[in-house]
């Protein structure tokens, strides 16, 4: 360890400051794009809690993202802005409750079953919004006005203004990062990691592993819901495709690309994934072919993801040094 914890903290603060300073230099489109990356980073971190720490590979995480997005679109009045302090908790709660209901069922299964059952449940949720008039059917639904953070007559900030929304999203990202830090250092987090490495042992030690996993599943679902809420507020348009299993696969890919088991890795994965897609789509119309090849390469040659890259490179250099 070269740097002390204090230096690391300073560096983290620098990172946040860079993101905070971005709206001062970036153009409108890129501010929105970075805001989207920040939202995806929250989404990826929430999935990482399941995959990277709990060992639960879910292919249905987009369901909670989508359910929260639909919740805010559906409960907001058509011609007036809703109150942020009502719709935000309501959306997160809806996603959390859905995670509780689905978690009770899917956590009865393990391994391949778990992967496929989460996939099937996200399909069910998809059809719920796609096939019924509930949320505008297959064409999707608009959120016409961004919610207002009104407390009585007082409005501390205004999300209708792009920069303020950006900072609100950035604040949410930092809050989720800090929250996850607390959770993972808590006894709950340690048990979760213990379950990942050896569930049998944890159970014989007297832990009710099912309830720990359910807790993690609900928390991850609620945080994915926060991301979905922010997405709906940012873009103002919600569609059933937000719940599709392709979106679930997409966010899983972000987690792996960045390197699982690390919230910073999840953020890195979200950023690089978007950057790669943007870059490739400029090159060729068959850019998904390149995307597929990148996925193959990451799985085969970079198992630890991007955050493991420096360590691996250093490993190579260290061997080189040895010969001197």
């Amino acid at each position: 360890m070269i740097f002390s914890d204090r230096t690391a903290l300073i560096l983290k603060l620098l990172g946040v400051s860079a993101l905070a300073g971005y709206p001062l230099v970036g153009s409108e489109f890129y501010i929105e794009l970075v805001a989207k990356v920040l939202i995806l980073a929250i989404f990826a971190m929430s999935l990482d809690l399941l995959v990277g720490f709990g060992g639960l590979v879910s292919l249905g995480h987009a369901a909670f993202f989508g359910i929260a997005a639909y919740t805010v679109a559906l409960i907001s009045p058509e011609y007036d802005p809703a109150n942020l302090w009502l719709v935000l908790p309501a959306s997160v709660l809806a996603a959390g409750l859905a995670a509780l209901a689905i978690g009770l069922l899917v956590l009865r299964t393990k391994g391949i079953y778990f992967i496929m059952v989460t996939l099937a449940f996200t399909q069910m949720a998809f059809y719920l919004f796609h096939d019924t008039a509930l949320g505008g059917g297959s064409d999707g639904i608009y959120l016409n006005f961004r919610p207002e953070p009104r407390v009585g007559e007082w409005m501390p900030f205004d999300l209708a203004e792009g920069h303020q929304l950006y900072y609100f999203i950035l604040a949410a990202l930092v809050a989720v990062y800090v929250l996850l830090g607390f959770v993972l250092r808590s006894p709950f987090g340690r048990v979760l990691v213990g379950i990942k490495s050896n569930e049998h042992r944890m159970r014989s030690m007297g832990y009710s592993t099912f309830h720990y996993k359910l807790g993690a599943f609900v928390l991850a679902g609620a945080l994915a819901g926060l991301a979905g809420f922010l997405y709906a507020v940012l873009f103002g348009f919600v569609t059933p495709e937000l719940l599709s299993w392709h979106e679930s696969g997409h966010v899983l890919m972000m987690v792996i690309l960045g390197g699982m088991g690390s919230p910073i890795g999840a953020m890195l994965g979200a950023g690089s994934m978007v950057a790669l897609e943007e870059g490739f789509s400029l090159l060729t119309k068959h850019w998904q072919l390149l995307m597929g090849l990148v996925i193959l390469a990451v799985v085969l040659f970079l198992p630890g993801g991007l955050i493991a890259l420096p360590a691996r490179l250093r490993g190579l250099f260290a061997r080189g040094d040895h010969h001197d």
Partner: protein
Amino acid sequence: MDIFSFLVQTLNAVQYGLLLFLVASGLTLVFGIMGIINLAHGSFYMAGAYLAFGLTSATGNLLWAIVLGVPLAMAIGAALEALLFVHLYKRDHLEQVLLTYGLILIFEELRSILVGDDVHGVPMPDFLAGSIPLDDTLSYPVYRLAISVVCVGLAIGLYFLIQRTRLGMMIRAGSHDRDMVQSLGINIKLIYRVVFALGVVMAALGGMLAAPISSVAPNMGGQVLILSFVVVVVGGIGSVWGALIGALLIGFADTFGKVILPDFAGVMVYLVMAAVLLWRPEGLLGKG
């Protein structure tokens, strides 16, 4: 529903279920024996349909297309196993999911580059092209009945292959304890290659057989993939009989769901799956 309609719908359900079985059986084999979760299974179904289209155009007959297409699919399967999947046996399910997810993107783009984005149809062989009249309005296509017969034949063949042959014995042993089988001097690598190729052939064959009564179109594998998953989960991973029972159950749920509860047709098969899992989390015939 009168008794006549009921019987015809039952026929529809069985016929649909058997076709689902054909595709899902390959998936359950690869799952159960090799422990590999393969999201690209639907792409192999699509590849089969496009092979049927290309080869039928070239040879003029679907039967020739199948005769040529099956070895071709087997070769593709063996090559993919040797190049990619061989690296996955020691990896966890997560990496398998991702790698095969990447393959879906690659296959779909290759399809677009090689054959374009048009919708195609494949003519069925003349001697199977007729229909049998059931009453004054409704007939049943001979080809659909023929597919059902082929699927039943394949199910029996697969059962014999796994339960009654030497190769099947090695496959079964390999799924229990890879290292022990290897120490007995059996070439486990070759067995895995054969099993994987067999799985690809089953999916591709499903695509080829379905091509004349379906359409050959972009993204046709996605729908089939999800349904195959449901079938395998319901039946129990690795069990060929389970896949058959699961496929028939899903065939019935889908067919009668559409007729009796049309508003829930979209979620019917998933509801059935959820119910089965509540009752038996490891599937109907799963080992738990």
